[in-house]
């Protein structure tokens, strides 16, 4: 088991290293950030001065080594745009993003799981068709459109909810619905297929043969086993929602990490984009690591097979 864990941790470090190198390169391929940091009428010598000030005049390998050295000490650089350490900016926004991510995850679970179960249990019925319709709509309606429609209905027409910004629970409702809607659809589809697979398995047939009531078969036997992949996906989805809810956060002027990333991309704020992507990657890798280790604990075949 120990060897398994060490190996997984090593894989995680390698993944993180590849991610850091990739994002480091990709942001630099977008062009020179100095063009956006200086006035439009800046002279070449001014541009050079700014480049030097931010260390952009050094070669890419040197910049990368410096970046990694700082990152290993927990420092992700200083934002060009905000003149603040990226980690400080990130953790300032993190509570808002966690709030939104948790709320959206909850909505996606509350819609996706029950609808997925009903769809699987009532397969090929009108219930199933309705659920499939919901899934289709969820996956095909763009989040920005849904967000604007929600604002129009619930803020402008009904005046129930504030249009934007962060504050009390009322501010969270619309962005969480707009964000969670898409993930609810994917959750629904996964729950449905997972349930269908479990419902067709031998032990479920045995349970039915034993005369257990349908409710008990579904709730106690099928549902529990079908949930494993669903919760795995929910964890990863939540990390994505916390770190990359770019469009929803822009539409609702939600002060979260997604909007920070959006601003970083538009301003070519290299340290900011690198920092946010690496933090998101770190979270996903950490969650996967924990899940892998838990799986290995639960199912010895996994650790033995590897």
């Amino acid at each position: 088991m120990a060897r398994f864990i060490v190996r997984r941790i090593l894989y995680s470090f390698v993944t993180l290293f590849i991610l850091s190198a990739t994002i480091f390169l990709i942001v630099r391929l977008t062009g020179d950030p100095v063009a956006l940091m200086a006035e439009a009428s800046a002279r070449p010598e001014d541009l050079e001065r700014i480049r030097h000030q931010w260390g952009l005049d050094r070669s890419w390998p040197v910049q990368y080594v410096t970046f990694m050295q700082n990152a290993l000490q927990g420092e992700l650089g200083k934002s060009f745009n905000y003149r603040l350490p990226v980690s400080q900016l990130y953790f300032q926004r993190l509570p808002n993003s966690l709030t939104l991510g948790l709320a959206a995850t909850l909505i996606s679970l509350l819609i996706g799981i029950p609808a997925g179960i009903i769809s699987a249990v009532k397969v090929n019925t009108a219930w199933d068709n309705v659920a499939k319709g919901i899934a289709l709509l969820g996956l095909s309606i763009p989040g920005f459109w849904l967000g604007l429609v929600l604002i129009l209905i619930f803020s402008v027409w009904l005046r129930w909810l504030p249009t934007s910004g962060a504050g009390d629970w009322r501010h969270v409702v619309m962005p969480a619905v707009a964000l969670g809607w898409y993930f609810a659809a994917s959750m629904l589809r996964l729950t449905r297929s997972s349930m269908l697979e479990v419902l067709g398995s031998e032990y479920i047939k045995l349970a039915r043969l034993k005369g257990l009531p349908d409710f008990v078969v579904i709730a106690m036997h099928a549902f529990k086993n079908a949930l494993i992949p669903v919760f795995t996906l929910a964890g990863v989805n939540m990390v994505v929602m916390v770190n990359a809810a770019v469009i929803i956060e822009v539409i609702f002027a939600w002060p979260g990490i997604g909007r920070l990333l959006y601003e970083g991309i538009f301003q070519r704020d290299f340290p900011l984009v690198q920092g946010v992507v690496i933090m998101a990657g770190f979270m996903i890798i950490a969650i996967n690591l924990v899940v892998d280790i838990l799986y290995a604990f639960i199912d010895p075949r996994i650790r033995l097979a590897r």
Partner: protein
Amino acid sequence: MRFPRLVSRGFVPWVAVALILTAVVATLMPGSAPVSAAAKGKIVLAWHAGFASRWLDPQEHDGTATPDNFFTAIHDALIKNQGTQLYDHLALAEKFTMAPDSKTATFTLRKGTKFHNGDPVTPQDVKFSYENYRGAKADVFKRRTERVDIVDGSTVRFVFKEPFLDFPFLFGTANVAGAAWIVPEKYYKQVGADAFKQKPIGAGPYKLVNHEPGVKVEMEAFDGYYRPVNVKQLVMVSVPEAATRVAMLERGEADIVYFVPGELISKVGKLPGVTLAPVLSGSFFVEFPGFQDPKNPFHDKRVREAVSLAIDRKAMNQAETTGLGKVTGNWINPDVQYAIEWPEFPRNVDKAKQLLREAGYPNGFDIEWLTPLPTFYSRGERLVAQLREVGIRARMQTMERGIFLQRLQGGLKEFPGVQIILHGARIGGSWSFWYEGHFKCGGFNSRDRICVKDLDGKFDQYERSINPAERKKLAEEIQRGILENYYLVPVFRHAFVNAIGPRVALQKWQDVFPTITTGYAYPWEDLKVKDQ
């Protein structure tokens, strides 16, 4: 009316003494200007982009027409653009004189002005702010300034190496440079430049209460300001999505929203109690990169004129700003020194075709790319369609803003062959900043894409001249030369359409947007909420 008992008990003299004492104490108390007592209410401004923290520090003015929205609330300058004054509104200075030889500029500080931390604004702060300034045009100020003298407790003199006629324009225009904006030396040095951007202290009408980087700036009326500040709380919130800004206005969450895009203008105009504020902003004009090359079709003046004749400026203005912009004859905004008035250019498709025939292009010709200023792509599309009518066939190239700026800085090699650029610019102060930026050979933006030696020669003469009459004459000659030869072809003046909600007191939108040199709602201290 009778007051026998009161009089008999000596009440009136006591009241008189109390009133006099109260008046004396109130006068002597710091920050007892009439401001705080009157300031009430709250105004929320929905800003149309992200916030950059550097915009809170005038020492690092980035030269764009953006930071002044924030400076003008938190900070103050010796002189500034305000209302219809282009550069010389007296602010922290109560007196300002340029020497007749333009070799010195002397400012007398207004008495009793303070920073938000209570420290007085001193000549030493002025000297520090100028000498430490490292933003846009800093090199020009440094190159041309010999020293800054503190004459006495309230007077500062800038001594130049040579006559510096443009000094007041560069110095006093908030959307050009930030050297006139005074920061408290002690605090700035104590916290450092980066921390200052997070918690700036200025001498402006509003003091910072809360700053969430990139999200929100909350301010409160500064009761030590030398002018009355009417509204108690001023909040600026970043709301990048236009539809959300409009919804905020509709719901009363915002009182002023900036930048209502064309497709939302008519809807916003119909909202009850909402006033549209179509502030005339930047000018859009056509540039022909490398037209000086004889092989370039645009080398021929007739072809450039044909382009001008092909443009339907009124239709463009109507479609892009619902007619709230303005078709003007000059590519330089009229709100700068020495800008000339010029008649509107006509549209005449037949004449355009005829000119093309005469120039040897009976079937028109192809253009590699037409590149509009990001993000005004629809304007580029309209221009492409209008040019096609006369036989000039162009493909449109869209660029992300950073790429566009980078390629402009790369010069002609970035725009090879036959190309057109649809530019837009808003530059304050003087006509010469426009020329220097967008026309001069080797200029900041024009680089080597435009080179007209005789006009550049005149411009050099203009820069050397210390005779205002001669400078004015040269400025007019040069502008005429550009327009008569269609070196740059003006299109229209863009309207930066804002909207004002029902809580803001106004008779007309100009009461909220009185400053002609900006699209923003300053001076902030003059804003009022209803019932004030």
